[in-house]
């Protein structure tokens, strides 16, 4: 299901220039490209790769996707509102994980840890939103914040591994519902929720319109500041959850953790087919994008490829995919 593009109707179009079947097909393919592609890869992988279709392997894929996926779904809102992406998400996730562990450890309460981490993340997001909403460049702003947050975390922890002591934080990561561990459930729930909220709420609609055309939003009384604040709030929640779950999973976190996360998250959003200029991004497709990258890596792993080869393969697929999605969207819009 895509959330942004309503299905094309079959009524002929009298006034518009001919809506050719090629264009229509291109549009449908573009809209449903991600689910189709994931399905295709799943089938192909199951047929060609031993052990891929195993329940345990599929579950492992979901677990591997969860943390990146949660952060990426949060980031989708940033891209949707036309604010490109956050280059500081990696350090925010680590900060949240560390705050969560430290607070949970100090207070003995997992809940308090979660709340404080989410709160800290939201504050950080708000500060950035106010700057970006005032018209400053989001890439520079988030890059700067990322560097500052990383520096502060490194100084603050002095390089120590932070743990929650004996507080049972792992429950957050191991508790399982329907045979799936909580991070996966949260990933799915967050995807569904963000997807629903962007499609069905006033706020979500305004965010999409803001990203679609900032100038029209301006003349229509849609505030860029509000949209940006909400988008950063979504990013912050995603980052906080990713950090908390990642920290809970391993009961520990340190400043240098998750060095590749920012890039993975951006790749997921882009492979999910989000329009880089805003107005077109869906949580579901981002989630599928994150999933697709992990699936590809997994298949190559099962095929016995070396890590370098896997990286190369993922890179090649990302390039081909983003170009393909771009061409499809252009064909559909023309």
């Amino acid at each position, binding site marked *: 299901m895509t959330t942004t593009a309503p299905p094309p109707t079959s009524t002929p*179009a009298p006034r518009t220039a001919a809506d050719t079947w090629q264009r229509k097909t291109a549009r449908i393919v573009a809209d449903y490209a991600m689910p189709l592609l994931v399905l295709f890869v799943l089938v192909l992988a199951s047929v060609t790769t031993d052990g891929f279709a195993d329940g345990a392997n599929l579950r492992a894929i979901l677990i591997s996707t969860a943390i990146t996926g949660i952060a990426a779904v949060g980031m989708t809102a940033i891209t949707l509102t036309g604010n490109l992406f956050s280059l500081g998400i990696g350090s925010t996730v680590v900060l949240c994980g560390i705050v969560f562990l430290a607070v949970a450890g100090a207070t003995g309460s997992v809940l308090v840890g979660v709340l404080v981490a989410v709160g800290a993340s939201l504050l950080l997001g708000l500060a950035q939103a106010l700057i970006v909403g005032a018209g400053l460049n989001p890439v520079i702003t988030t890059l700067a914040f990322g560097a500052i947050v990383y520096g502060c975390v490194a100084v603050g922890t002095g390089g120590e591994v932070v743990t929650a002591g004996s507080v049972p934080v792992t429950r957050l990561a191991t508790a399982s519902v329907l045979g799936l561990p909580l991070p996966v459930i949260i990933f799915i729930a967050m995807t569904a929720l963000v997807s629903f909220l962007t499609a069905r709420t006033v706020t979500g609609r305004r965010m999409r319109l803001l990203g679609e*055309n900032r100038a029209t939003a*301006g003349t229509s009384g849609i505030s860029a500041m509000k949209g940006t604040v909400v988008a950063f709030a979504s990013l912050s929640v995603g980052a906080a959850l990713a950090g908390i779950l990642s920290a809970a999973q391993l009961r520990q976190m340190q400043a240098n953790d998750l060095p590749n996360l920012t890039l993975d998250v951006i790749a997921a959003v882009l492979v999910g087919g989000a329009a880089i200029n805003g107005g077109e991004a869906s949580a579901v497709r981002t989630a599928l994008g994150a999933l697709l990258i992990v699936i590809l890596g997994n298949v190559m792993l099962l095929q016995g490829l070396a890590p370098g080869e896997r990286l190369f393969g993922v890179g090649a697929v990302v390039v081909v995919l983003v170009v393909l999605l771009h061409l499809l969207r252009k064909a559909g819009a023309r």
Partner: protein
Amino acid sequence: MSTATPLRLSAEGITKTYGAFAALSDVAFELRAGEVMALLGENGAGKSTIVKILSGLVTADTGTLTIDGETVTITGVASSQAAGIAVVQQEYSTVRTMTVAENLFLGQRSAPWLWRPGRLVARSREILARVGLQDLDPRTRVEELSVAEMQLLEIARVLARDARIIIFDEPTAALSDAEIVRVLEAARRLASEGRSIVYVTHRLGEVFEIADRVTIFRNGRSSPPLEVADLDVDGVVARMIGRELGDLYPPRSSSMGEVALEARGLLAPGFRAPVDLQVRRGEILGITGQLGSGTAELVEALASIRPVIDGSLHIGGRQVQLRNRRAGIAAGIAYCSADRKRDGIFAGASIRQNLSSPWLSAVSRAGFIRTGPEADATKTLAGEFAVDTNRLGTKVGSLSGGNQQKVAVGKWSGIHPDVLLVEEPTRGVDVGARADMYATLRALAESGMAIVVSSSDTNEVLGLSDTVATFYHGRPTAVRPATEWTEHDLVREVMHREEILA
């Protein structure tokens, strides 16, 4: 100029369509060596389109082009330049972040591969002097220039090129009289050097001063060129506006109510004098003027897009403070801009989402959009404005210009504003859709709105409005009930002001 002069350029059978809309149909155009050919026609007649075809910015659908006896194909700006054509475009021409000197030589094929800034600046000074900009430092960035200086710079740029055919598309719209004189001199000088000049303008005075012949465009069609010596101002105006209007325009206001919009001493950047203004419920006020006349600035100030630096604004008798567009909307002022693609529509969103964008909260509960009511309300609205109600899920970007415009205006109906401001309501809209648009606006006025329509199409202003005001040079110049204007007067007032003032 003798008729024996050989043809420099001849274009035949030129057709250009945008989607279903024909901007040019089977147009013929010719140009002799050493002549100044004026190109006249109302807004949207297709003048800029033929200019763009000649300059390689758009490609014609059909037609042949001959220059000095040779058939040429123009596929892009480079091939146009290679054919010896240089253009002062109506829009898109100087790069704001670059200096004057750099802009002068930008994209010039004859420019040296490696240039020395000193020489560049010196050469720039020479060229700038030819348009009277001798005091302008060539190292200034274009973004720091006034509109007039930018326009003169563009003309200077063309002078820097050694072209056989030079096209000016409304070069003087933003200039003052003294500057205009310089442009005219430059054009004449170029012609006397044996070059051919195409001069597109809305100022008739200029035509009589420099043109040898004129070609008049009307509704995307051309008529054979005429010798200027055989014409007078009234004759030209008659040929420009002589189209059959039929009952394109709805009847005027039956009853005007109390004052809905009142501005006192309103002052905004771009004005050259404060403005007082009153519009009544049910009234359509049409304002018209050339580029830079102040109409756009007035509308934007009223819409609270442009900061107001002085004066007060009253809606329904209550004074309102307009800090930003949102406050304007809250105060009941709807606004639909001249450039709908830029800031009027959400091209990638559906008709439904466009229509409901200003009044989403009316069809939502607790922040959630109720899709049923939204669908019903948009359907009703679309029906009122003759937008195909079966296609509400279609992206607006794929609609025709007319339908896009209906969406851009119609969406405001949902917030029941006191005041509706519309710029260029029918720009790029075909004749059939025009009638729909006029009916729409009239219906909105009848429902009790006060409407301000700003348009550079004098015919439209006259046909649609109850009251018409003209602007010139940053200030209003005349305001009368529409019935007291003739189109002839209006065209003269707007286009030919210098004669009246002289």
